[in-house]
């Protein structure tokens, strides 16, 4: 938390027609976690980033990048 990290989570989620709650269910976290990651408030752990990428059938690098 605190360091900047750009992410394309909202775009990737919308592309697959998923709500925050549906993605949260797929990943096994709460909706607020998805919300804070999308808003850039929270930088996810490596495990969560990998889970998000797997749920959205993409790579971590395409979801997250440094500014």
């Amino acid at each position, binding site marked *: 938390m605190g360091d900047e990290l750009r992410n394309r989570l909202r775009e990737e989620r919308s592309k697959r027609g998923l709500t925050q709650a549906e993605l*949260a*269910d797929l990943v*096994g976290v709460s909706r607020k976690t998805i919300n*804070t990651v999308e*808003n850039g*408030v929270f930088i996810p752990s490596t495990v969560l980033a990998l889970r998000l990428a797997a749920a959205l059938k993409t790579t971590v690098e395409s979801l997250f990048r440094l500014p």
Partner: protein
Amino acid sequence: MTSRNDVEFADNISRRRYLATIGATVAFLGAQLVARPVLGVEGFQLEGFRRYLWAINALGLIALTLPIGGWIFGRRIRSLVNDEISRGHGRMATGAGLWVAILIAIAILLTPLGRRCSAAEASYLIVTPVAVIVPLYFAWLEARAHRDG
């Protein structure tokens, strides 16, 4: 109950938790402001049962930020309510509380009070603000996490 409903249910529990945390903290703070057991000319006025009640309430408020509770809702709901971000919020709030405690302790040490400050009074002056700031900061972080946009 479906898996999707688990996420929504946990979301609801999490919202209620931060609202309840704010309510309990404000009630605790209000009680302290009404009682004002410190800084009076008679010295520290928190004896017997009231002293234990204060300690239990203060500990209870700080414990609200721990990733515990929700046992009645089952393992999945519990893990969703206390997931990565909530645990992080708990750590951030506890860290803030530590800094508050250190700064108040230093202030008590360096500020001339004009009379002796007992250990019990110093404990009260340190723990009470910590027991207010830690849960309120946790609740604010949780509320921010729930905010859409």
